[in-house]
């Protein structure tokens, strides 16, 4: 039987506010446990939440970026359940009236085809703390770190519009690109700044009713998400083909062991008893506020890609690679502006630099080669000071902290010889010491002589230790040989 996969995503995006959504405690990552939790985060008696206006603005900006309807009056609700890392015994979130309504995100597939993924809504909520366990179940100790409790999140809920892992990953990457371009999220996946819950179901090809779905929770890398989807789709198909039934359940995927397990079934699911939070007034956003935020929106990935194509004459492929991430785009533009050579900048950034960063698992902000350094290197390539082959050596030198392009070219003696007098004597020398080759050239039929040029070039470049400007050498050589014939 042929099976069809249906995927919907719930994406938690941690907003890059300085303070928490309902308190003034810091949201900075990596502090000692419980040093960034104030009396509100601890849910001490009598404390009250006050909503962080920056979080509201960020959520609205996201809504505008995906062309969604902005909830003019959004309401915070209490989602009730007991857990030690949920201090109030309820999570403050939004349900009936979210801040962002329906919208659309376009993704580009490997085939080059564009697909629209509908967003059902996006809402604001607070994150919970973290439970930490040491030792085994019986003798171990559990601790609670409330530093993360109250960190503002936007939860983006998609429609089940994706039909395979590739689409889901493309969608996730696109959201990452949008929120980082907006500057509303730092995009640090390893720190949990973006987390994905994947709803997956399968059905026989052509069937219109959806199959029973499972939800794989808390995936924090694109790779894990891709693996988890493959694994779950396979599991569901195998199970159904064996005549089994899918149980609606929440599953956990371990990216290290690449194994998924059931966490709880729907029967065990909580009744969360949502109701509007009486400590918070409805969030009212005026048209004027929305318009003011719209003017503040930075350039979004799609617009940026088009601009790169138009302004820098890049290919769609290069423009895509360079425009997706705001920091990458900034790096490229700085390099292009300073080197005054967009084409070479695009080639170097999307080629050598990205390959090197990927190999060392670094992001563009961590690049040891600054945009200015790369621009200087490109200037030297463009003005023929060095060949592209030498440029790779210089790049390595910059990467390893040996200095700027000019310093390395100088220190390693890599400067290309373009002085025509020097080159002429070099050519003369090689011709003089290779009389046999010269004779052979002369005796060859005129229409086949071109093939023989390579031999001379090799000798000359070797003699110059590779520093001779090849274009100039080839011109001089052609002239000299013509004189001999």
């Amino acid at each position: 039987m042929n099976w069809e996969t249906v995927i919907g995503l719930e994406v938690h995006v941690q907003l890059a506010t300085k303070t928490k959504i309902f308190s003034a405690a810091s949201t900075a990552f990596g502090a000692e446990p419980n040093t960034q939790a104030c009396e509100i985060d601890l849910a001490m008696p009598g404390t009250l939440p006050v909503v962080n206006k920056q979080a509201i603005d960020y959520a609205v900006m996201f809504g505008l970026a995906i062309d969604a309807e902005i909830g003019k009056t959004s309401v915070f609700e209490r989602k009730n359940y007991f857990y030690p890392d949920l201090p109030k015994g309820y999570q403050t979130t939004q349900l009936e009236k979210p801040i962002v309504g329906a919208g659309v995100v376009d993704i580009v597939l490997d085939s080059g085809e564009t697909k629209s993924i509908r967003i059902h809504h996006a809402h604001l909520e607070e994150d919970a703390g973290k439970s930490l366990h040491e030792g085994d179940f019986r003798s171990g100790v559990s601790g609670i770190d409330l530093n993360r409790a109250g960190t503002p999140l936007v939860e983006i809920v998609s429609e089940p519009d994706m039909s395979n892992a590739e689409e889901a990953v493309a969608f996730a990457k696109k959201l990452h690109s949008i929120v980082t371009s907006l500057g509303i999220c730092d995009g640090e996946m390893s720190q949990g700044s973006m987390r994905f819950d994947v709803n997956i179901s399968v059905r026989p090809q052509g069937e219109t009713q959806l199959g029973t779905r499972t939800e794989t929770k808390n995936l924090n890398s694109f790779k894990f998400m891709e693996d988890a989807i493959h694994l779950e789709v396979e599991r569901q198909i195998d199970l159904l083909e064996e005549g089994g039934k899918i149980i609606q359940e929440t599953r956990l995927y371990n990216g290290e062991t690449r194994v998924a397990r059931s966490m709880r079934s729907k029967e065990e699911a909580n009744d969360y008893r949502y109701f509007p939070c009486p400590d918070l007034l409805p969030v009212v956003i005026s048209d004027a506020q929305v318009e003011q935020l719209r003017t503040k929106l930075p350039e979004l990935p799609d617009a940026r890609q088009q601009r790169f194509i138009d302004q820098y004459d890049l290919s769609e492929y290069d423009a895509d690679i360079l425009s997706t991430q705001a920091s990458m785009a900034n790096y490229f533009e700085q390099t292009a502006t300073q080197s005054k050579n967009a084409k070479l900048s695009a080639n170097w950034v999307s080629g050598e630099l990205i390959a090197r960063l990927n190999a060392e698992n670094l992001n563009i902000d961590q690049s040891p080669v600054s945009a200015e350094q790369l621009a200087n290197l490109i200037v030297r390539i463009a003005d023929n000071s060095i060949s592209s082959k030498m440029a790779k050596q210089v790049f390595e030198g910059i990467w390893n902290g040996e200095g700027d392009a000019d310093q390395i070219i100088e220190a390693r003696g890599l400067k290309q010889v373009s002085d025509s007098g020097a080159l002429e004597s070099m050519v003369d020398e090689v011709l003089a010491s290779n009389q046999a080759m010269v004779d052979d050239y002369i005796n060859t039929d005129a229409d086949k002589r071109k093939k023989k040029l390579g031999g001379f070039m090799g000798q000359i470049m070797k003699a110059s230790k590779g520093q001779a400007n090849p274009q100039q050498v080839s011109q001089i050589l052609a002239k000299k040989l013509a004189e001999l014939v």
Partner: protein
Amino acid sequence: MHNLTITELIDGLKNRVFSSTEITQHFLARIKNLDSEFNSLITLTENQALEAAKTADQQLAAGNAPELCGVPIVHKDIFCTEGVRTSCGSKMLDNFVPPYDATVVANFRNSGAVMLGKTNMDEFAMGSSNETSFYGPVKNPWSTDSVPGGSSGGSAAAIAARLAPGATATDTGGSIRQPAALCGITGLKPTYGRVSRWGMIAFASSLDQGGPMARTAEDCALLLNCMASYDDKDSTCIDRSVPNYSAHLGDSLKGLRIGIPKEYFSEGLNSGTEQAVRESLAEYEKLGAELVEISLPNTGLSVPAYYVIAPAEASANLSRFDGVRYGHRCDDPKDLEDLYRRTRAEGFGDEVQRRILIGTYCLSAGYYDAYYAKAQQVRQLIRQDFVQAFEKVDLIMGPTCPSPAFKFGAKGNDPVAMYLEDIYTISTNLAGLPGMSLPCGMVDNKPVGLQIIGNYFEEARMLNAAHQFQQVTDWHQLAPAGIES
């Protein structure tokens, strides 16, 4: 000295008739001598009080004394006090010492008031008789075999017994007005949002409101001047300037239109209480006011709506008491479930558990619309009743509660009979309106309260009407037998 009003104490302090230290010592001695009989205080803060009195005396001597400088007061044990145990009348918080002051407490501190201690109350403010306190019931100084009312029974009894000239209290469904009525003192519940709820332990967030208690309306005005403030730590606090509530106490009542809701004089009202209230209304006519019969047709729905909304909010508000971070924790929990179950079963009394169960039930899937959503609609209808009434009248008056103080245990086995105790007071909380109670007669040697309900933010007009009544009557000057000496 203990028979002096706050107004008279301030005069005496300013004119050096006595020092703050002297009156503080006097009230502390009275509490130590007499309160074993009434049980109106949970915690006596003797050292802090004497310390504060000393500071107040220095300020008074220096001539830079703030408004309430040197005046001793007591705080309901629902208001968090930095460094002083704040129990909310519950075993759950028997060991809880807040690291912060409630805004109300801070306002009084800044105003130079001297805190003598924390007053007894129904557990988590849930009760109308003070019988649910973990610290034992408060006894009514007028008749020690009768209840003082609740939940602010400790504050009311302390004032009636001349253990303090003024107190803070809170009112969710009548918890200021009903004990004020039963103890023969004056108490005011302000408009919702007038007094900050920061640091006031929540029972039902959309209904809770702090307010003052004293013997006279004039004193309540002084206390409210200090208590009311805009507070950006409470999102439901209304940003509106605080008038001088003492400024219009002397205004004439000529032409004042007083609405008399016919629903407040129906079945269930004690005939003696009715007579006392009617005679008071006649007094108002003599003062130049005009009595207008009005109808608040949805009054009968207020108790059922309240007993859905208040427990629903409470069920979530009290989830934070889980034994994890502060407060009571059961011994040797064998797992998380056991920790929650036993901590909460041991820490909460019966009435609190009953209301958590009611509230949880009302919010459950499948019941929400029938209960919580419906109750919110009823709340709108009740609000509409008042909005329409206030188009025709300036104030509304009637009994505060159906009968004078009842005997201990009289309604203990019948929660619904107890809930009906608040039938005349609950609708103002649902509507968010201000209400007050002042002594207006005696039945069987027990005080009767007259309730005054004002339009939103019309506390000054209510205080004016109450003060004028107290200029021509002496019910507020009566003291329980044995208290004078």
